């Protein structure tokens, strides 16, 4: 159960990627999704692939964990690739049957799309594997700050985000515990027809809701008791600091962009 939910979980480490400022990692992950659309031939894809591999190497995390990130999406990817292969024409036609054509153009495009998916998933997995969720929340807060001028509730959103992230593991443990307790009382989870399965969920969901509400109430009381006011002027325990490595990362991505533009 918990093994499946492992996907994209933070893996503590001390690599150069782990130590980067989470803001840089977040921004560059988005940026990467943007520049991947610059790639349009095998040289550019090969170059991006090599770049991604170097980034993965720098995390000192086994490649297996990145590949695991692709697995849950594999059907979506294959479906998209198949559509692309079967319904785009051009170049040499290898085989055709009514509207369905397998052409050299389709095959090449299929491969490109596959690469695009895999590289994007690798990069975002890299972000979540090397960045603790709470640092990500801090990064989002910091990046959203400019929105305060239009009265966007940055602090509140950031607080909600960090509390939610903080309680994901707790909630997962709790789920596991209650599932075991109900299994011991004869509930079969994930067995029988859909109706039976839905019924099996009730003895899990109700205790989970009850304990979440209790926990939320406790947390609110504890925060108030310690004088939490929120918002303006509150200093932070985890201070983000921008360093040379962060500038170099941005520079690296800028260089990648330049190389892509030249190679395409």
């Amino acid at each position, binding site marked *: 159960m918990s*093994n499946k939910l*492992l996907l994209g979980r933070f893996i503590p480490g001390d690599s150069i990627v782990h130590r980067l400022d989470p803001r840089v990692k977040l921004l560059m992950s988005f940026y990467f999704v943007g520049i991947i659309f610059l790639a349009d031939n095998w040289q550019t894809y090969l170059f991006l692939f090599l770049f991604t591999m170097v980034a993965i190497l720098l995390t000192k995390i086994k490649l297996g964990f990145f590949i695991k990130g692709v697995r849950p999406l594999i059907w979506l990817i294959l479906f998209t690739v198949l559509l692309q292969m079967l319904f785009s024409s051009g170049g040499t036609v290898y085989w055709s049957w009514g509207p369905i054509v397998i052409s050299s153009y389709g095959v090449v495009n299929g491969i490109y799309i596959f690469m695009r998916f895999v590289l994007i998933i690798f990069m975002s997995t890299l972000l979540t594997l090397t960045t603790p969720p709470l640092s990500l929340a801090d990064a989002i807060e910091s990046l959203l700050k400019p929105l305060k001028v239009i009265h966007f509730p940055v602090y509140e959103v950031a607080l909600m985000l960090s509390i939610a992230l903080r309680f994901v593991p707790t909630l997962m443990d709790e789920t596991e515990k209650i599932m*075991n*307790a*109900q299994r*011991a*009382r*004869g509930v*079969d989870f994930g067995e029988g027809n859909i109706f039976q399965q839905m019924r099996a969920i009730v003895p899990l969901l109700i205790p989970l809701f*009850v304990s979440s509400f209790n926990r939320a109430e406790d947390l609110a009381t504890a925060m108030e008791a310690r004088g939490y006011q929120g918002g303006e002027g509150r200093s932070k325990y985890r201070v983000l600091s921008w360093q040379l490595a962060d500038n170099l990362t941005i520079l690296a991505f800028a260089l990648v962009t330049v190389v892509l533009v030249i190679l395409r």
Partner: protein
Amino acid sequence: MVMDITFKDVGYTYQVGTPFESRALHEINLTLRDHAFTAIIGHTGSGKSTLVQHLNALLKPTSGTVTIGDRVITPETNNKNLKPIRQKVGMVFQFPESQLFEETVAKDIAFGPMNFGVSEEESLKRAKEMVQLVGLKDAVLERSPFDLSGGQMRRVAIAGVLAMKPEVLILDEPTAGLDPEGRRDIMGMVQRLHQENQLTVILITHLMEDVANYADQVVVMENGGVVKVGTPREVFSNVQWLRDKQLGVPETAAFADQLIKKGFQFKQMPLTETELADELLPQLPQAGRNDNVE
């Protein structure tokens, strides 16, 4: 049927094949006899809860085999058809009140037996019996379990497991967080079930008094392994060894241990106050005289 439970070279690792792998049990060889009252003690994190979850196949060993009555559980065992084991081996988890969910106490207690194919009528009848057994009034049957106090919820949760009529009852720190009277009530009830209904009881506890008073076999765990199995008297006779394992001893044993250091002698380690008094009295020079009280 004989419900001996045997562990053979059992190992268990959480989250195998991930960087979060943690080995919780290793090389466990252990037999829990039918109708015995076994206490499992050990420092926090020593693997007690992990061990007992093997007893009703909630966890399957990652190596070795667990034999429960006539069923053999191996790492390859299929998850289907485990229900008969779960009916025979009832399990009360740590803080079991978190498993309550029905509208009424009666329905919640009847939930277990109904899952095992007992009719609704019979299950509700059992609910009524069990509520009395755990020392609650009939009136709570129609109340919502969420309106009860923590201690009452605990009793309802225990009743919910007892209603399944298990042959083996596992209790994981059933009295944690209860007041002394609640503790005595629940332990008294467990002892009655053991003596009158011949239930096999397996109790995880941090309270050495409970071990001394109720158990006839003690399993000591440390770092995922079993380091000692014996009667309470055997285990508690070596006070220093237990302290090294970061475990306590019953107050009486600790007291006797102090006296031994001062030159007193005991034929056997006293585990109850009566035993202590009986052995101590003849050794006191002025026993029974109180004319030298200051």
